[in-house]
């Protein structure tokens, strides 16, 4: 049994105290393994984004443990969490969050350089990551010169550059048209299949369908989930097998 990339153990998040307190998350148990994409669905305000920021060490839960690649975040000082974030996981947001004054390659290598990687080694890893999302030929382009779909592919490359294996994506296709969104999901899926893992927060069923498992959040609790299973039959009413 290999160590999961991410484990949430009884995670809870409460804002405020006493009667005025608001429970954003409660009793969350979740595991993400290598090669696995877990979609989190739920209505607005159900706690999806809070769950993601806790999983990524941006927010400290009020109860429970977050374990990233075997390391308990609660045992690390803030500096240690920041370092773990740089080395282990990458966020992909709806609005891409690329630095406009940096090229695609510089955006991708930024977390490595912040972590002290030297130029040549970082650039080589950056090219590898861009190649994986079929965008290496645009390595020198600035975000403004890239389409929305291309910018999001750069963000995916940044999320998995170097040793990073855990992708935390918050509505990554929200700003893209249907066909481009599908292309981005395909790229994300390829990165996961190549040995990463991730959480995808989405309200869009067509994008959640790219995941191996789907969990539903309602009022801060996981109410239900689909199992990881092998598809038996592919098209309703028969059809060719592919």
């Amino acid at each position: 049994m290999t160590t999961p990339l991410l484990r949430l153990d009884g995670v809870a998040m409460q804002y405020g105290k006493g009667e005025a307190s608001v429970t954003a998350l409660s009793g969350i148990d979740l595991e993400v393994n290598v090669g696995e994409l877990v979609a989190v669905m739920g209505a607005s305000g159900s706690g999806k984004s809070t769950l993601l920021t806790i999983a990524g060490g941006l927010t400290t839960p009020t109860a429970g443990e977050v374990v990233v690649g075997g390391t308990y975040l609660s045992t690390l000082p803030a500096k240690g969490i920041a370092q773990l974030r740089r080395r282990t996981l990458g966020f992909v947001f709806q609005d891409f969050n690329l630095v406009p004054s940096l090229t695609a390659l510089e955006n991708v290598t930024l977390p490595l350089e912040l972590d002290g990687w030297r130029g040549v080694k970082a650039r080589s890893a950056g090219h590898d990551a861009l190649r994986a999302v079929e965008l290496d030929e645009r390595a020198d382009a600035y975000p403004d010169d890239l389409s929305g779909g291309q910018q999001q592919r750069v963000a995916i490359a940044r999320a998995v550059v170097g040793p990073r294996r855990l992708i935390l994506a918050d509505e990554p296709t929200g700003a893209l048209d249907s066909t481009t969104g599908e292309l981005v999901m395909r790229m994300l899926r390829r990165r996961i299949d190549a040995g990463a893992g991730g959480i995808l927060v989405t309200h869009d069923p067509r994008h959640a369908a790219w995941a191996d498992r789907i969990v539903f959040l309602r009022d801060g609790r996981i109410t239900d989930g689909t199992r990881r299973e092998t598809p038996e039959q592919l098209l309703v009413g028969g059809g060719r097998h592919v």
Partner: protein
Amino acid sequence: MSVRQSLLAILDQGPCYGYQLRAEFDRRTGGTWPLNVGQIYQTLERLERDGLVAKGESDREGRAYYEITDAGHEAVSSWLSSPVERQAAARDELAIKLAVAATLPGVELADVIQVQRRATLALLRDLTRTKDAIDEPTSPEDLAYLLLVDAQIFQADGELRWLDHAEGRLARAVAAGVAGPLPLNTEVPKRGRPAKAVQP
């Protein structure tokens, strides 16, 4: 009916015999709607009766080729340039199930919705994997098949969005105190048809 029109449209490319026509239909629909040869010949006979195809001579193997007529060619053009008409008030098994479930005592409608959501999401995931396995189409057959898979994906997507909406509607109805069982009516209904059918 799209099978009849599709067969006619295929014949617009050239004469075919029954088995050949079935194979050509399968190539274009990925075998999603398998037709038996009986259906094919029955359709061909009706198309012939309606003057849209003509039965030609049989070849040495005894295969009778059907050829499209001018009227048939016009019918194909007309089919392609007009929208497909949806059946009015088609029965939707799921919608009826939810509507009836909403009136029954002791039924958690949210659970009924969630069971369906899980099943439809699983279907959507399988369809997505099917699509992903093809990646980019490399032939007209791939393209035709992907279009069919996309159609089913969007149908499942639409159903899931409707389930979300139904859940929201239910929550509002519960909050407003209007959700609950509908007791059996003690008045004996009159015989015959209801006075007014619900129009879509």
